[in-house]
């Protein structure tokens, strides 16, 4: 993942630099060093880990500087170096915050999208009990965007309400099937509302985007060369023979301005030494080669002294898009193409379940050591099944 516009943003922030230079800067940071070893049923990789111990996937360093320019305006910049991306530093937060009142704030610039319960602090391992939140829900669910965000936080008696309303866009490079894909999300808007009442937290969120992928046509496909070759082949079929279904499929395969709608609901209970958290997420798409996804997890933990032990079950159920039902089956003309397309779309849908057991030990102030064992069961390729053992040290400073 590579962010596209850091230069523009940094130049925008330069505008504020003269005042920052004389203001007091607060530095905060977080660091996670993780390592793991996988025993994959097939192939040699599982969730980014191999059959020898590696130490990059869950390792991350974040540095945050913030300063109050006056009573209402503050500036925050966060730089993140993620081991999964070869520690290539990225600007994940860079925004100007205007505090209208004690309850209401407005952010302009770059911020982490509050898609799901743990999304906007996904890299801060110290803030939660796992080494990383369940991948069935959180793989790709931590993303930064450029835009505006309104934050409303207020106590109503014993209940505490937080509402986040955001609108913006993001552009990132994702490597998939050996091709660099430029994923462009526009009109990315949504909300997250949460209510904390004593031991109970309830949160709901939704987000919609218009997603286009440049480079998608470069993905290799047997027989036709690539997705681009498939599109050309479909468009070359005579309409008199196959109708307009083939052309519609070709248009969908272009992956342009596809509407993605994400929604989620989570409940967290922190009762004395017990923690229970569950979250349900849904991704709905229309006329897109992307799969629809329904995912959820439930996690329970028990704390004693500086130790916590926890169990988690997580699942994702994907539904591959049907891009071929409108193409008539004509032997030697369309039957091979239909099989090719169905095989391609089926590979985007992954059904996976994971059971994990883990411990967290807060061995000194601001530093936690964690260990986690996961049994991953994926129904279909390209995901793999197997066992994963990971350890991590998480710190905040």
């Amino acid at each position, binding site marked *: 993942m590579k962010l596209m516009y850091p230069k523009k943003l940094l130049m925008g922030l330069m505008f504020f630099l003269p005042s920052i230079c004389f203001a007091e800067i607060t530095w905060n940071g977080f660091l996670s060093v993780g390592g793991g070893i996988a025993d994959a049923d097939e192939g040699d990789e599982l969730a980014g880990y191999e059959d020898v111990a590696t130490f990059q996937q869950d390792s991350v360093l974040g540095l945050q500087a913030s300063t109050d320019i006056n009573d209402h305006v503050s500036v925050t910049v966060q730089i993140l170096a993620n081991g999964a991306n070869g520690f290539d530093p990225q600007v994940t937060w860079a*925004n100007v915050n205007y505090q209208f009142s004690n309850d209401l704030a407005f952010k302009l610039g770059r911020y982490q999208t509050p898609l799901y319960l743990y999304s906007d*602090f996904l890299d801060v391992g110290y*803030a*939660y009990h796992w080494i990383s939140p369940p991948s069935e829900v959180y793989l790709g669910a931590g993303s930064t965007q450029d835009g505006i965000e309104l934050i409303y936080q207020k*106590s109503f008696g014993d209940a505490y309400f937080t509402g986040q309303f955001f609108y913006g866009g993001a552009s990132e490079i994702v490597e998939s099937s050996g091709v660099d894909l430029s994923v462009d999300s526009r009109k990315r808007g949504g909300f997250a509302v949460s209510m904390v009442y004593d031991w109970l937290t309830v949160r709901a969120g939704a987000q919609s985007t218009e997603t286009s992928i440049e480079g998608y046509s470069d993905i290799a496909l047997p027989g036709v060369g690539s997705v681009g070759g498939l599109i050309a082949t479909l468009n070359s079929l005579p309409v008199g023979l196959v109708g307009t279904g083939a052309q519609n499929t070709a248009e969908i395969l272009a992956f342009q301005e596809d509407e993605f709608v994400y929604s989620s609901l989570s409940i967290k209970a922190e009762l004395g030494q017990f923690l229970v958290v569950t979250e349900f997420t849904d991704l709905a798409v229309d006329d897109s080669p992307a799969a629809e996804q329904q995912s959820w997890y439930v996690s329970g933990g028990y704390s004693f002294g500086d130790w916590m032990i926890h169990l988690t079950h997580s699942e994702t159920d994907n539904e591959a898009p049907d891009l071929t039902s409108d193409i008539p089956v004509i032997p030697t003309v369309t039957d091979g193409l239909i099989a090719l397309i169905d095989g391609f779309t089926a590979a985007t849908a992954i059904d996976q379940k994971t059971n994990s057991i883990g411990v967290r030990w807060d061995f000194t102030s601001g530093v936690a050591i964690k260990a986690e064992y996961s049994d991953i069961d994926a129904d279909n390729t390209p995901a793999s099944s197997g066992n994963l053992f990971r350890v991590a040290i998480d710190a905040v400073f």
Partner: protein
Amino acid sequence: MKYLIIILTLIASAMAQAEIAVIVSSDSPITAADVKALERVYLGKANQIDGKDVEVINQGDGEAVTTEFNRVVLNKSNSQVKAYWSKLVFTGKGSPPNTVNNDAEVIAAVKADPRLVGYIDSAAVTPDVKVVATLK
């Protein structure tokens, strides 16, 4: 007998240490603060007690009084408090209270600013500050 006295003294001092006094300046309009109100202001969920604007100060994690205060008022361990604040700090939603080093610094800070609320070992209370809550 000598040892018994020493042990009793130690127990007594340990018990005395377990008592926390929440203090404000003698100029503060606040007369009493309940645990719920203290929890809200110490978790950054409110900045008023009884309708009066306040700002709170903490003591370091290494102080016994901090551990006790976090347990009794916030119902959290020190690391849970730290995890709570790191979530807010790194999402730009809030920042933890300022921290001072010991009871004497809390007293000095509170005396200098009538808006400040702090907590100290109740044995350290001086006559020139006002105790608004005593917690065990």
